């Protein structure tokens, strides 16, 4: 479970987060949506420990992301916005590297890598070097290395961006499966169709604050709109911030 309370963070004079708070419970897919520069990536970065908040707290399974950084890192799997690969390593070696950094090894690790290659449909390029990978192949490798240690909490920043329909569906199925195992999924996306399809609840962030939250049905009802895109524009006022780094 991920809990965020009153997070504030600014970069020089730009306020990226201005008191953001939300909860992403276990067994739930929570969608984090907002215009460009609303502060989504900054909030995620604080949760996945690469940034410290100016004030407020973020906890993962009750562990503080600043004080218990190492413990939090063991409990999260992250597909960040920047998800570059090493061009001279094969897909399999990428997943193995992260698995080993998480303390896995031997037959257990190799078995898990094979399993992920199967789930994500990576058989064709698993042993090729990442240098010439397509956007979709890069995304799959990044997703596989985020999942290798079977994290209790999964943070995904636009996981299907650049994937074809079949691969997107495979990822959606995977996310649902992870949720059904009672794990927590926090999910950032710009594709409202996708948000509607897989999110159990939605948190709308705008200008560094939580503009609205609830299930897709609740949000539609609240704004009186017919689809999530309209709801999104109504809640954010069509805003596009500039605070995100």
């Amino acid at each position, binding site marked *: 479970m991920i809990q965020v309370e009153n997070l504030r963070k600014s970069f020089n004079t730009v306020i990226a987060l201005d008191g953001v708070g939300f909860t992403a419970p276990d067994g739930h897919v929570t969608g984090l949506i907002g215009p460009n520069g609303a502060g989504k990536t900054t909030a995620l970065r604080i949760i*996945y*420990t*690469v*940034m*410290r908040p100016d004030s407020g707290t973020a906890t993962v399974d009750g562990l503080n992301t600043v004080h218990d950084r*190492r*413990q939090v*890192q*063991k409990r*999260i799997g*992250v597909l*960040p*916005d*920047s*998800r*570059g*690969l*090493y*061009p*001279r*390593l094969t897909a399999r*070696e990428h997943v193995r*590297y*992260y698995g*080993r*950094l*998480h*303390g896995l090894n031997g037959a257990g690790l190799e078995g898990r890598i094979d399993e992920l290659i199967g789930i994500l449909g990576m058989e064709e390029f698993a042993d090729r*070097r990442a240098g010439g990978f397509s956007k979709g192949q890069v995304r799959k490798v*990044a997703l596989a*290395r*985020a999942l290798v240690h079977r994290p209790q909490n999964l943070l995904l920043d636009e996981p299907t961006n650049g994937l074809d329909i079949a691969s997107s569906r495979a990822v959606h199925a995977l996310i649902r499966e992870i949720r059904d195992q009672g794990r927590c999924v926090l999910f950032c996306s710009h594709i409202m169709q996708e948000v509607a399809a897989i999110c159990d609840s939605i948190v709308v962030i705008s200008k560094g604050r939580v503009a609205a939250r609830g299930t897709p049905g609740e949000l539609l009802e609240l704004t009186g709109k017919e689809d999530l895109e309209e709801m999104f524009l109504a809640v954010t006022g069509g805003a596009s911030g500039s605070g995100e*780094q």
Partner: protein
Amino acid sequence: MWRRVYIVFAKEVMDNARDRRSLLVALIYPMLGPALLGVMISMVSSVLSAGNSENRMDLHVAGAANGPQLTAYLESRNIAIRPAGGDPELAVKNGQAEVVLIIPDDFSRRFDEKRTAEIKIIADSSRLPGLFALNRLAGVLGEFNRQVWEKRLSVLGVDFMGLRPLDIHSVNVAAGISAIDILMFMVPPLIIFNIFMGGVYLAIDTTSGERERGSLEPLLINPVERWGLMLGKFLAALLFTGVAVAVQLAAFKAIFDMMGSPGSSFVNSLDARAVAGIMVSALPLMMLAVGVQFIIATVTRSFKEAQTYLGLLPLVPAMPGLVLVFSPVEAEGWMMTIPTFSQTLLFGQFVRGEAVSMLNVAISTSATTLVALVLVAIAAGLYEREKLIFGG
């Protein structure tokens, strides 16, 4: 934690062993210095052999038949007389002959009449071999002059020695050391340059490069202390630097064995003891070099920016060594506290096979290690910063 440091280290070594650029810097670049030195040695030795009276020197002479007395004397001084071709001046200008001696038609007649006989030397003093040859020829002709002079004066009953106010004996303190050995002073700066060059590509690739590829941020989310990530990468860069230095020393040894004439100090230089001594005293400097590289690669925003700074870096520490090539100094204790300078002096002593004070090695090693540890700590501190994922 150490297991994870090793995992990062092993990954970076494997990754960069597949990189042509990293391998080029670690395995091929180090050979360029020794190769350059080899070319210089062979050039200088060919030049020097022309000036060495023990070696036979070819002299192109126009009109050799006009002065049999003179050519006979020259031949007795280990100079081989060769006929000069068409235009002597052109031949010298074009480098076909070092010097040309012209003996005019009336030489023998004037000489036998005990009058001043004229000869002409064509030389190009702007070329080193020409200068050496001219110098040698002038010396031999001076001797000939004196001998004839002495002979003619003694016939008149004059004491020749009384007419010689100065009897010059010059003593060359470089006795036993051939001029080529001066080139040995080039070895330390080349090693220092290589130390600051060997792991540079890896340092940039694993920090600025990793950030630019977008692989740094996901890496930082793994349950590894940031100093541990930095240390793994640092050790990988250190290994590549060590390999580069080892390759360079092997190349120097090969060049010396190839170029050194028997009796020259080259052949015996860089024995196992010297190589071990150089590696031991170089290790702290390698740590220092890689530490500086990591600091620069961490604070610069891009691969290119890092490359710009780090490309120039090796010149700075190699500078004292280059100065020492022209004005050598005696190693003293306080000098051993200065990183790069102390290694320059120690490498020089090891290469020339001189006695090396173990105290000096100890001072140099501990002083440089101390500085290196401070730099590594600074680099580790920079890894802790939030800004790491953005650079700057």
